[in-house]
């Protein structure tokens, strides 16, 4: 290390279920180098100071969605949050808010994944097509309609930002709604009606009070707040037209 080594203090909320009844703060002194990310700071701690610190990470470039955590109280990806924005002050890191803490900075992810799976987040083609017939045609403008919502990396920061989710873990949340609209709005897709069931429920879009913080924290500018609030119109329309359609809207 350099001779005049700069140090930044990182305070981490630890939780080891086998020994801790509740989370406890632990402070580490980490060498500060101009370009280092918070993730690199955590890696330094695990590598050289305390191997028991557990956290998720992989790609280091904000595309895999593994490294979401609360950094000074705000949901962020640790790989693209930089120590220089906090130095020389102290930095506090906790597991992503609103999710149960399994261990240190690792939260329960399986409920998020399970709920996503239940929403039919896959293409349900409007019409069949053989492989020999080649690709479905889709103009650049048709593609633009849904591309923003397709950028979701499943990092769950939007759920950590949403107090409605924090107070009701059954709430569908804005992140999943973005993924749903990505398919509903895809010109090749015909599955919108099949997906509306969970959307129309009270724990569906109606749990949202348009706080909007989810879109502020989204690291990929997906704007999930827009997705979920747009569907309030859709859900209302469904409610009023349900007698007009074949009754499939409540599926």
């Amino acid at each position, binding site marked *: 290390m350099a001779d005049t080594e700069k140090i930044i203090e990182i305070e981490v909320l630890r939780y080891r279920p*086998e020994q801790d009844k509740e989370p406890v703060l632990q402070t580490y002194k980490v060498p500060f180098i101009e370009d280092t990310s918070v993730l690199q700071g955590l890696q330094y701690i695990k590598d050289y100071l305390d191997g028991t610190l557990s956290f998720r990470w*992989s790609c280091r470039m904000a595309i895999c969605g593994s490294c979401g955590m609360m950094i000074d109280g705000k949901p962020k990806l640790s790989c693209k949050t930089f120590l220089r924005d906090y130095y020389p002050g102290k930095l506090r890191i906790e597991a992503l808010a609103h999710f149960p803490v399994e261990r240190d900075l690792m939260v329960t992810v399986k409920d998020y994944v399970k709920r996503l799976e239940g929403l039919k987040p896959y293409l349900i083609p409007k019409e069949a097509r053989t492989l020999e017939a080649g690709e479905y045609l889709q103009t650049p403008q048709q593609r633009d309609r849904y591309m923003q919502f397709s950028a979701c990396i499943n990092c769950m920061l939007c759920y950590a930002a949403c107090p409605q989710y924090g107070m009701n873990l059954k709430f569908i949340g804005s992140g999943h709604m973005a993924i749903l609209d990505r398919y509903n709005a895809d010109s090749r897709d015909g599955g919108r009606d099949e997906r509306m069931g969970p959307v129309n429920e009270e724990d569906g879009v109606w749990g949202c009070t348009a706080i909007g913080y989810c879109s502020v924290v989204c690291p990929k500018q997906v704007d999930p707040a827009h997705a979920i609030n747009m569907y309030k119109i859709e859900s209302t329309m469904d409610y009023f037209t349900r007698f007009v359609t074949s009754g499939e809207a409540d599926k």
Partner: protein
Amino acid sequence: MEVYKADVAIVGAGGAGLRAAIAAAETDPALKIALISKVYPMRSHTVAAEGGAAAVTRADDSLDYHFDDTVHGGDWLCEQDVVEYFVAHAHEEVVQMEHWGCPWSRKEDGHANVRAFGGMKIERTWFAADKTGFHMLHTLFQTSIKYPSIKRFDEYFCTDLMVEDGRCQGVLAIQLATGEFTLIQAKAVIIATGGAGRVFRENTNGGIVTGDGMALAYRHGVPLRDMEFMQYHPTCMPFTGLLFTEACRGEGGFLVNKDGYRYLQDYGLGPPEPSPRNKAMELGPRDRLSQAFWHEKKKGRTIEGPHGAFVNLDLRHLGAAKLHERLPLICELAEEFLGVDPVHTPIPVLPAVHYTMGGILADGKTASSLPGLYSVGECSSVGIHGANRLGSNSLTELIVFGKVAGVEAAKFAKSVAISNPAAIEKQAEAARLRALRVVTQSGGKERLAVLRTEMAKSMEDGCGIYRLQADMQATCDKLRELRERYKNLKIDDHSKVYNTEWLLGIELGYLLEVAETIVHSGLNRKESRGSHQRLDGYEQRDDVNFLKHSLAYSTGDGAPRIELQDVKITRSKPGTRAYGAAGEKAAAEEREREGAGNG
């Protein structure tokens, strides 16, 4: 210990693993498929791939051209019959992805667009902006949800294969959340665990790319083929090694040295032109471009930065509109990590390790030498990349051979039964104790990070872009020493719930063994070919002695034993790899010869 009985087990849920799972499920919905991954599937490193997936599409393109580009790019170390299968099935697979919803970028008329890519004669790379791997992975993951016969084991870490009666009959895995072991019995096992780039210091890879499946197969006597061929991607970020896609160059970016000079023209890739020309200049193959950087650095023409030498990737002339439409992720990366706006400023780049051409020896149907064991994707050497991979062939590989692996494994699983469950459970118990020993016998003094850093530095020194006998030998010796020191680990974490340090300890074991196969294979190959280049008397390609694959066999605790295997040549005899103007001349001459004779 919990036992789960599957028909097909797939280790790794990235692009290849997911595609295989879907293929197996479609082959027979009654089969029980266990899809096991040490991370949630959307975290798999396929997600970081950027550029695109190659498939012959345009009317002026042909399977022969794609075949030739691939075999030339691989410096004739490719299994040509497998390459023929690969190019012939690429288009149907990218169309299949599209049918599953993959948001390929489009032309105005609604058809999928194709872009130019390094070493490719005609534009044939399908792309989804510059996040192709991300979109492919999410499409595959979301599509896999439709198949109820696929049971996922998310955050389960495989520590061993179960081999009984000469057949692979399952895997043992640790559930991260509890530290408990699960035996997953399966009549066929597919390994799809990705590459091993993390053995090197500077790399584009995510933390999970640690050669797990390669080591698992290797330890059970399956050879790892062509491991010395590690791809250096020419345009990566200083310090982190993060990737700036080849598409930057496909869209017209320039590589310039400290004098603002497009230096690639000095290395047989010229002459330079203002717009991109296939197989020339910045669209040459990756090994040539990385080698050019090395030479520029030697000549003192690279730029010195806080994190070492770099050159500039100049995208300014592309304009803001094109940059934001075609390369949005690149712009984000440059701005967020480097504070550089590519619209106004060139991006500092340098070569970093990106891809593992070699891997588990697999035949054209992804089968390994161990019955019941298949491998697919970056962890596998099915034979299409040879000594150097062309960009955008690897994403296509995932889906072409992912399907093959799924179909073959399903077929095999239906034809056999688990032979001896009791014996397998005993094996599982022994494997469990071995895995636990990484923690329980860790009263030593070697920190994981110290060993890992020494390994990575040594690999960079010995197995860099250009290699020397003495350096490679030093790395061999260093790895021997590290494998000894590995027996003396100091692990702080003795807990069970999400003990990630324990798993890093097991991974380090995988990394060290795979690293040994790389450097020993390199030392043994006394020639220069593709991405294995030497400066110690073996600067030339030697088709007489080394038109052969390297096979690295485990000797247990010792260093790998290297053997050679013939290469399958069908219709492309080894020639000169020429690019730029020289390449066009060579291609014209070859066409003349083919026209004159009968090819």
